[in-house]
């Protein structure tokens, strides 16, 4: 990402150089200037307060520089000597323009400017406050590792590198966002991902003209197809172990500085039903859990709509006992079943949103109000029927099984209820057709979202329809490239 400052060269005269830096930065307070004489040459050490480690600055940079004694050395000679003969830090970039210099300063580098030199030397001494590696809050696992990504891109890169030591694993850093100048890292296995795919992804990111990039949501739309799809074809995880498994399958990951989530491309529909625990359990149990998840998806999406459609338009589908229970429950309800169901589902979404946004201390109160006051009293007062509340609860709980699909399910569930309420199973089928065709049209960089189910790819069934054991899996060497569809 190049700004106009990248075209402004460093002024060799130190006084003018410092003035220019102060002018560009607007006299910002955290920028510190330390003018010193090193081997008789007027120099200035600059850094951003709070971004550098004070210990590193004093012990590893200032002290050796102040002890440096060189006879009749030129300004450039001094910088060359410091760069070549003194190992002040591992990372010692050089900048000859103010764009690069400010980027280094604002990234926690110490900058050494020398009077008479038209470039500066920087030392990596980042030492800002950071959140430690903690367990991911959104993707809980019983038997997997307990570390999650953090906000620091370098830490996240190291978390992956610790797991994949292969020399074929590549991490490419690029910068995007004119103002935020956010570091973005493209991660992939060079022996499993075709170069044309990497080029296309890099091209997509380079095409981003956003002023700032603060989270994954800013990048995601540029990696997704332009067609309006209901489900996202870009995956997201906050677990390094999950991301590593995706990378070894030949997918490409995108890390964004300042965000503890990684994106991966392509995401397949089956990814929503896989968790790391599946691979730590016995294969039969893994398969059982997977099938439960598929069933849960259908329940989450269709159960309230099916209830409404059957109760309103197709009561002949129920046996007499069920029909009587339903009729008895609904006879006193003041609203139509469709309105009642939509109301309950909307209320749940409101409560969920309140639970997420409110401070944790108030969260308990929300649960009490939602569960006891609204739920219990609504049923007792006859506003909502008990069977409906049961159906809604089953559907909502089933939706929790696939957190990656929660957004789509929340909206689709209500649409299905409305269609089921108006046109019964016929309406539901029409709605299902729309969703089915939409899912089938979703693809990212030539990878169909519905693969390996359609187009059918038998080899991949061992990790989608069932969960085969690793003895069998080790012979397969599956990569997503096999699912790539020809145009």
């Amino acid at each position, binding site marked *: 990402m190049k700004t106009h400052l990248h075209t402004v060269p460093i002024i060799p005269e130190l006084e003018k150089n410092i003035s220019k830096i102060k002018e560009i930065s607007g006299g910002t307070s955290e920028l510190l200037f330390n003018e010193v004489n090193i081997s008789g040459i007027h120099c200035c050490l600059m850094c951003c307060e709070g971004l550098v480690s004070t210990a590193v600055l004093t012990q590893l940079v200032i002290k050796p520089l102040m002890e440096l004694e060189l006879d009749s050395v030129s300004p450039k000679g001094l910088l060359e000597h410091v760069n070549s003969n003194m190992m002040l830090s591992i990372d010692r970039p050089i900048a000859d323009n103010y764009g690069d210099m400010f980027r280094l300063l604002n990234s926690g580098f110490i900058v050494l400017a020398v009077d008479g030199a038209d470039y500066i030397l920087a030392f990596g001494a980042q030492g800002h406050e950071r959140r430690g590696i903690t367990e991911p809050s959104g993707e809980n696992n019983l038997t997997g590792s307990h570390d999650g990504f953090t906000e620091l891109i370098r830490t996240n890169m190291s978390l992956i590198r610790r797991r994949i030591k292969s020399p074929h694993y590549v991490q490419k850093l690029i910068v995007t966002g004119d103002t935020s100048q956010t570091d973005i890292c493209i991660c992939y296995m060079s022996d499993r991902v075709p170069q044309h795919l990497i080029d296309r992804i890099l091209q997509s990111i380079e095409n981003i003209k956003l002023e700032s990039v603060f989270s994954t949501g800013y990048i995601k739309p540029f990696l997704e197809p332009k067609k309006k799809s209901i489900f996202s074809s870009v995956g997201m995880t906050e677990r390094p172990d999950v991301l590593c498994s995706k990378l070894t399958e030949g997918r490409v990951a995108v890390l964004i500085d300042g965000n503890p989530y990684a994106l991966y491309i392509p995401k397949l529909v089956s990814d929503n039903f896989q968790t790391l625990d599946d691979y730590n359990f016995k294969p039969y149990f893994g398969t059982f859990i997977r099938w439960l998840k598929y069933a849960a998806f259908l329940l989450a999406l269709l159960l309230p709509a099916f209830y409404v459609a059957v109760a309103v338009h197709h009561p002949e589908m129920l046996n007499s006992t069920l029909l009587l229970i339903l009729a008895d429950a609904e006879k006193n309800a003041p609203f139509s079943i469709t309105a009642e169901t939509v109301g309950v589902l909307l209320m749940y979404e409101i409560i969920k949103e309140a639970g997420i946004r409110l401070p944790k201390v108030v969260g308990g109160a929300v649960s009490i109000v939602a569960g006891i006051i609204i739920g219990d009293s609504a049923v007792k007062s006859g506003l909502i029927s008990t069977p409906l509340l049961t159906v809604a609860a089953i559907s909502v709980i089933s939706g929790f099984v696939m957190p990656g699909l929660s957004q789509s399910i929340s909206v689709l569930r209500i649409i299905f209820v409305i269609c089921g309420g108006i046109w019964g199973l016929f309406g539901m089928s029409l709605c299902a057709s729309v969703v089915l065709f939409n899912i089938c049209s979703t693809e990212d960089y030539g990878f169909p979202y*519905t693969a390996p189910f359609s187009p059918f790819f038998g080899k991949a069934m061992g990790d989608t329809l069932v969960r085969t054991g690793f003895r069998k899996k080790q012979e397969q060497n599956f990569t997503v490239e096999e699912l790539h569809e020809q145009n």
Partner: protein
Amino acid sequence: MSKIKGSQLFALLISIRIFSVICMTDLTNANSMAGVAVSTAVQILAVTPMLLLYKDSSFSLKKEMLFGKFGKLLYILFFILWGAVSFSNLWEVTKSVYFPIESSFTGAVILGAVCVYTASLGIKALFRASGLIVGLIGISLIIMLVGAYPKAELTHFIPDADFSGIIKAAVRDFCRSGELVMLFILCELVPKGKRKAVTVFFTAKLILTELIAAVEITVLGKIINISDFPFFTAGAFSQPMSIQRADSVYMILFTILCVLTATVQITLSTMLINELLPDLKYKSLITAVLMLAVSSALNITQFDITVLSGILILILAVAVPIIMYIRRKFHENKKDNSSLTAVSNA
């Protein structure tokens, strides 16, 4: 142009066929079942020239002179007609089976709107969706078989001595095999595995049609003759679980297959219209409206299109490929002769 797998072609064709079978009203006895078998054998013979044409990797439907403007128009008309038949089927089914819609026309309009959207998503989405719909067909048939097993009476399965019925049933089945025309156009999109897909399709078509017919006949017995749509009645008679009726469940399969079939017709028509009138806007919408209009006309006039569709299938799926094949062979021979003459002259 999108490249499609042979298995996807199979999935699409078999889904369209199952929709036709669901809507069939005359698969009522052993003779009609035999007629289907005869018709399938004839269809296999009928598609042979088509497959021979596509066997030649240099063959492309787009490049053929015969497939010019008039040819394209004829195919467009056929697809519009076939799409209209899908809407008419919905129209007819809603009259006999309870559909929670105000009127049959409203149902057809809503379905048309859905089809316009699904067609706008492209041919790849269509093929992928058909792959998943085949799974739905499988599940529905299993439910039907499980439910039908205790109700089935093999004594209902008595062959009729009137063998002319077999011929009539075979002709009727051929006239309903619009998928042959679709096959001719769609084969262009399948680079590999055409022959295997077609072989599997005809085998599956025969087995599934006979299976559904057998279930209908054995479960319904004599009732089949007074039933408007035996598939739905058989569904109502066979109860897999302790629910009172299950025929509404088959409404889901019927609706999804109807959407798929109409979408295929809209997509194929749009594809061909695009070659004739590339600047025309809202092609899918126009096609869907035309289909609805034709469907309304068919319903109002009660016009039986069996003979007309039979003739069109014969022309578009059999005669055209044969003529194309002969022309190609003739040109190849001419080329060989001219090159031989050139060699001998040299």
